[in-house]
């Protein structure tokens, strides 16, 4: 839906890193290297980024 503010497992704030991650991986950078660069070294935070899909712009089209 939307990137969590903090990692759901360890509690590290990660929300502000998402857009940079998305931009850089879309530009063809290796996701593992971007994650290292962003300081996400635990596998909980890494899996959160690797598996996340932004869907909020689609949900916004429907009535609550």
């Amino acid at each position, binding site marked *: 839906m939307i990137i969590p*503010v903090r990692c759901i497992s360890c*509690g*590290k704030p990660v929300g502000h890193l998402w857009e940079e991650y998305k931009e850089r991986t879309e530009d063809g950078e290796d996701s593992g290297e971007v994650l290292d660069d962003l300081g996400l070294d635990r596998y909980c935070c890494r899996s959160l980024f690797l598996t996340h899909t932004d869907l*909020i*712009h689609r949900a916004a*089209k*429907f009535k609550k």
Partner: protein
Amino acid sequence: MELEKIDEEDGKLRFVVKDSSPAMMNAIRRISMNQIPVLAIEDVGIIENSSALFDEIVAQRLGQIPLVFDPKKFDAREECDCEEGCVNCEAKFTLQKEGPGKVYSGDIVSESDDVEILYDGIPITELDENQEIELEATAIVSIGEDHSKHQAAISSYQYYPIIDVDQEELTDDEKEECVEVCPRNVFEVDDGKLKIVDEKRCTLCKECVQETDFDGITVTSDEEKFIFKIESVSSLNPEDILEKTAEILDGKAEKVIGKLG
């Protein structure tokens, strides 16, 4: 007990502790994670929210945003002398934005000069055409035990590794394999010898021991020496967290001693 700093970067502090016990290390670990008062948004009054996220979810997201604050200035709401909340126990925020566009933590306006949002780029919600968000929020100081949004740090410790290498027992191939197999790059081969670059990197996984068929390398742990890590997940820096931890532990010990005597 003796502390020696290894390094500190990006809010992660590592240090070695000598002459201590797992009990002591765990006390420090638990207090640094869930007993340190941290400011976080607690009450949210929604005036308008036509975004795709429900009010509860917006409030829950706001609560998790790390805030910069002065720990000396804030009291817990229950311990404050006031009845209804005052500047010593609460911090107020407002947020107002119209779509289309994303709403970020940077759009939140703090009403006190000494309270700020730590990261401006946290997405809160997204607004479509004709959607709008307007709300008021109140932050309070509390501890991680109460709610994980008040957690100050992520802390962990491990035994200090003792790596013994028997150069005679190991063949050259085995030495190269050790370098290859160690996930933390502890070894290097220099002049036909297997050298330890930095034993503090070792996680005691014993992959190297297995690779050499339990013959030539032994990895054991020093049970009175530890490597401790504190990673801040709040606006407090790890050294301040450690200091506060010591203070709280001291207070708790005093309390027990007082009850005994």
